[in-house]
């Protein structure tokens, strides 16, 4: 039986805060922006209560830098923002990728570009979340569709960032961020927490960027002689710049890439609904998946064999999962609150016809719009 106090009526943004705290986040730095501001406000209340710190920085460049700095100092760290702020964070998301610093970036998407529509949902940052910072870099992006998922995926985000030493982006949207729903929170004792690996090697043998088979280097406690260097440049295993060391650069870039490949199964989350015999497979993510599920229900009532594959992990793109569930489908329908960002990846993986249902005007995609599209391609 679920204890009374574990049943909560919660906002999506609030779920992110509570889950972050349970996952061990003890440092939050941010700069307020709609529709993510509740995360900053709640963090300013909750962080000190658990012995953590809330810093309101001068901008998102600083927020991102501060969370990487705090994580370098050993604290699990998080920031939260929306489109314009997410743009400002990009350079140091790359830095976190390069020096393999665990951290979680929450982007509660609103309509863009530029200031767009601050209070309305969108999914326009799907490609930016993957490729927003320059250069080849690993990153993991998770996408919740409701308050419970915002909670669960925040815990996963913190855990994955610690396990794989990658920045993890929680790509929420204004709908998920602002909606209030009844949620049954898990018993905190039942939640497995992951902490970054610490070296057991003595300082003279320790190399901060040497990695074993899992491609993830170990941290060292910055005391007792572990005086190591980290830099944003291409670096060797000791962490020093390798300005013209092409072999070193090659080795590093390939390891960073392989690292996330090795953990792909661990970081891939999805839900399915009525997929077994689906002729029309809807592939959706984020709040759009809610409408997609309703669309499937209604279509089934009309004996149209529709199914839903809801991706909770969008990057690294779960090619194998999409292939597995779309193999028997005639057409794949990809509703997105953008002009079609993930559809190309879906099309490639599905290997069949894929059509989009798109809008980027700040309005949610209704089940009816999806149903109409299915009927149109039927």
């Amino acid at each position, binding site marked *: 039986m679920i204890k009374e106090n574990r049943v909560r009526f919660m906002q999506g943004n609030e779920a992110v805060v509570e889950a972050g705290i349970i996952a061990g986040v003890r440092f939050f730095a941010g700069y307020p922006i709609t529709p993510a501001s509740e995360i900053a406000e709640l963090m300013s209340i909750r962080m000190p209560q658990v012995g953590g710190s809330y810093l309101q920085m001068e901008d998102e*460049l600083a927020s991102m*830098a501060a969370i990487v700095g705090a994580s370098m100092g050993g604290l699990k760290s998080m920031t939260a923002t929306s489109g314009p702020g997410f743009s400002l964070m990009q350079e140091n998301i790359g830095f976190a990728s390069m020096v393999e610093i665990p951290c979680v970036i929450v982007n509660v998407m609103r309509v863009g570009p530029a200031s767009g529509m601050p209070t309305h949902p969108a999914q326009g940052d799907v490609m930016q979340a993957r490729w927003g910072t320059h250069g080849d870099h690993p990153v993991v992006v998770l996408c919740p569709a409701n308050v419970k998922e915002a909670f669960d995926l925040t815990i996963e985000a913190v855990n994955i960032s610690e396990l794989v030493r990658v920045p993890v982006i929680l790509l929420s949207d204004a709908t998920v961020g602002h909606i209030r729903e009844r949620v049954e929170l898990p018993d905190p004792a039942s939640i497995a927490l992951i902490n970054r690996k610490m070296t057991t090697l003595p300082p003279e043998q320790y190399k901060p960027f040497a990695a074993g088979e899992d491609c993830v280097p170990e941290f060292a406690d910055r005391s007792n002689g572990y005086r190591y260097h980290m830099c944003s*440049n291409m670096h060797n295993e000791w962490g020093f710049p390798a300005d013209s060391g092409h072999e070193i650069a090659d080795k590093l870039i390939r390891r960073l890439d392989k690292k996330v490949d090795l953990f792909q199964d661990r970081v891939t989350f999805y839900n399915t609904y009525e997929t077994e015999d689906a002729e029309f497979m809807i592939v959706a993510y984020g709040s759009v998946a809610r409408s997609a599920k309703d669309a499937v229900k209604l279509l089934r009532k009309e004996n149209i064999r529709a199914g839903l594959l809801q991706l909770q992990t969008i990057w690294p793109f779960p090619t194998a999962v999409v292939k597995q569930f779309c193999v028997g489908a005639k057409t794949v329908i990809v509703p997105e609150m953008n002009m079609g960002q993930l559809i190309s990846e879906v099309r490639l993986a599905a290997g069949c016809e894929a059509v989009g249902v798109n809008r980027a005007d700040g309005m949610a995609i209704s089940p009816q719009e999806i149903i109409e599209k299915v009927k149109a391609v039927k």
Partner: protein
Amino acid sequence: MAQVKDYLRPGKLPHIWCPGCGDGTVVGAMIRSIDKLKLDRDLVTVITGIGCSSRVNNIMDFHSFQTTHGRAVAFATGYKVAKPDMKVIVVTGDGDGAGIGGNHLIHAARRNIDLKVILINNQIFGMTGGQFSPLTPNGAIASTAQYENTEYPFDVCKLMEAAGATYVARGTVYHLALTEKLITRSLEHKGFSYVEIITQCPTGYGKRNKMADPYQLLMWQKENSVPVEQAGKYSAEELKDKFIIGELLVRNDRTEFVEANARLIDKSRAKAKGGSGK
């Protein structure tokens, strides 16, 4: 007393700097200050941004991070909160600290967070080949000011004072004994410290400005500096293009940020327990 080389990372010499560059002299001054204060080497972290000056921590044997251009102070803010016992020194350049990272400098000073910022002011973008910086003198030549620099430099020490820094000082490479003393004092101070050190970049600045010989640049530092104790003797006009050197501000009337944050944590916990939170 240990020697400077005892604090250098084995195998990290030669460094990357040009002959006559002032950056190495600053490293020497920093190390002598740290040695004088007998700071535990495992409790010192040197954080830098990007630039020639930001390479100082490659060779210094302390914890070290070379971050992104302009953001060292922002990283250091998070790091210091995570590691309150660490002496956190930020070394930055005039481009890194006063240009691209200027906003972070202002707000870290305002918070009075216990960071020791050392801004190595060579009046130019050294690393990228001598483009003008926000601290390049008006009328000087730079690779992006081939006719002349039409912009004006600004007094970052005054800016720091206005922003709320609690320790502000300026030295030069020429006045090395003074500079060393200022670094030492800033390391002892609790709160946001800003020490600007005027240095020379013969390659990016001197060559284009008829001071190719580092000696000429050192003499330029000597001639253009006025010790703060004597500044009162000069008119505003006479001080126009001069650097005031020495300890410019020490104040102890603001709570240091990490300490204030710790108090806030106590207060919130007392409140959560149902206390008054006072």
